[in-house]
């Protein structure tokens, strides 16, 4: 067995997230607010990158002075953004990318929200999808309303390991081949996943890898080994590029409970070829994270086309329908979709 979850209990939640610096910065802004300096905070990250988890952690730390409001679909009623009188001094808004509709006449709630956060005395902390944020930044200069911007970085490999293993009990997961540690060769070829936005897809580049640590240990007459657990998380880390949501999905797909082998960890590359309107709908789903069919139809102005496009995206295994009847991008396809969207410049 490897080193699984034996030490996860020693870490605070913030450390497991690997977001200690970000939490410290937000807490510093909250402290400044208490002394009279109000700077609204935007927490910005891509899909499944951990912004809701970070906001939850901020709410937990500041439970005496913070009120949390979560949007789970496009906001159409002004009342949803109105703040009751008993709201605490710090207001946390999750999923603010649901505050606008990308169509003429679809920005009224968004304008009102901006007016509210700039005119009220309370401190506002809001989470935004990275691509919605960039769009709103270029189109409306939203960054002026949020002087403190926290971009959630990719997770470190160790944090990903802790993030995944903290969901299981001690020694619950069996990393196969762990009993017989695999000796690393001196030189080996590794398929390195690379997103090429110029080509709009993810490719796997065979990289000749020299095992320097093995060499070092060999000269020191020690046997260098890499455990099965390390190999599993190395592969998950490379594939997910440090995105915890993608990492979890890849883990789930490779797990044959309670065992997992590093050979079963999938590498995903989707060769996407869509019509422009289909790609636009995909970019909307990427920017909003989840959209219902009626919302998509409203955004593109045609229910018939929405049906047709969603069918195509579903059969291409780029999206799936969740239990709330919203369409989301498949986590394992996320990196390929982003590369394709960047190729078409449908996300900025």
């Amino acid at each position: 067995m490897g080193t699984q979850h034996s030490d996860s209990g020693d870490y605070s939640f913030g450390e497991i997230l690997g977001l200690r610096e970000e939490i410290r910065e937000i807490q510093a802004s909250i402290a400044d607010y208490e002394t009279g300096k109000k700077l609204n905070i935007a927490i910005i990250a891509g899909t499944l990158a951990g912004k809701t988890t970070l906001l939850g952690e901020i709410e937990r730390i500041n439970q005496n002075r913070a009120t949390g409001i979560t949007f789970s679909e496009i906001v159409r009623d002004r009342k949803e953004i109105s703040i009751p009188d008993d709201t605490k001094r710090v207001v946390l808004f999750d999923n603010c990318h649901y505050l606008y509709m990308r169509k003429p006449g679809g920005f009224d709630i968004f304008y009102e929200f901006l007016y509210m956060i700039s005119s009220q005395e309370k401190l506002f902390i809001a989470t935004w999808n990275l691509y919605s944020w960039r769009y709103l930044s270029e189109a409306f200069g939203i960054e002026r309303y949020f002087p403190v911007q926290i971009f959630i970085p990719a997770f470190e490999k160790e944090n990903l390991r802790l993030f995944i293993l903290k969901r299981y009990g001690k020694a619950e997961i069996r990393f196969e081949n762990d009993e017989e540690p695999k000796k690393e060769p001196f030189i080996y070829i590794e398929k390195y996943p690379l997103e090429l936005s110029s080509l709009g897809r993810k490719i796997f580049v065979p990289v000749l890898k020299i095992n320097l640590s093995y060499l070092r240990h060999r000269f020191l007459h020690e046997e260098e080994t890499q455990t099965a657990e390390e190999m599993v998380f190395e592969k998950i880390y490379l594939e997910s590029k440090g995105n915890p949501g993608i990492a979890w999905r890849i883990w789930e797909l490779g797990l044959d409970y309670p065992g997992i082998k590093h050979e079963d960890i999938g590498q995903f590359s989707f060769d996407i070829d869509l019509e422009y309107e289909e790609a636009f709908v995909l970019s909307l789903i990427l920017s909003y994270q989840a959209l219902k069919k009626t919302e998509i139809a409203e955004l593109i102005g045609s229910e018939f086309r929405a049906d047709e496009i969603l069918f195509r995206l579903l059969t291409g295994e780029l999206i799936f329908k969740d239990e709330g009847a919203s369409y989301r991008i498949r986590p394992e396809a996320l990196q390929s979709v982003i590369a394709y969207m960047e190729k078409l410049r449908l996300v900025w």
Partner: protein
Amino acid sequence: MVNGDSGSQQLLETLRSIDTQTVVTMFLILAAAYVLGRVITALISKLSEKMSRKDRIKVKMIIPAVKFGIYVLAFYYILREIFNIFGPELLLLTGLLGAAIGFGVKDLFADIIGGLVITFEKPYQIGDKISIGAYYGEVTDIGLRATKLVTPDDNTVTAPNSLIFNETVASGNYGASEMMVVIDLYIASESNVETAMRILREAVVSSKYVYISGSTPVTLLHKALPFYTRLRAKAYVNDLRDEFKFESDVHTRAWIEFLKNGIRAPQLHILNLPPVRENHESDAPTRRNLRSSKGTRKDSDFNIDFSKDSGL
């Protein structure tokens, strides 16, 4: 010095000494250069179409330079053959060639020089949308002699490269994949301009074809004219090939929202013509009756539809 008579004699003798093999070799060099140029152009074009929008034009930019490189190499080998054959008699041949250029192929020569200027000075590149002479379109090829562009109506225009010396060339994007599109909407003077501007802005920034960045901002302009108000949006289309789709998309969605907000198109009564009646739901039965009572003449249908459209 070469004496006139003896020089002609020498030249004739030299010309007689050219064997078929040499002529075939020269012809093959030219043919190979042509085929190689076409193949490389096709390959680069295919590759560039698979690239991102930003990189497509950058990759296509190298096509003219590669083609000229191939032709320069081909002419080098041909000239080497000519030097081998003629030696000092080349001077005479040059004189003859000069006369030929002066009288017969001067335009061709000017086109080739124009092609060189276009390749190296780059007033436009393959993939650019340009206006040259009376034509506007996307440059699809820059050859030795002429530039090909495809107009919005899908006509292929072949413009001689020498036009570059006499005509002004305007490039809409100049090597970038995005391009500014100016969209004008005309509304009635009494309409609420503030609302109309907000709607136009939202129609532009929400279009699937728009590209907005620090260097490609959206600009809105308002001009009150005597009988109507002009709203102008200057915005960048993501891919210059979608120029007209972008314009149409903004027009359509802006007008749908204008009508919801009571913003109307300029009315004809400014010219002392009766105003066009608004198309209310309650009018529909009357119109249907009108149509049936007047028979099935196509022109009456047209009149009804026309009045509906002009309401926009």
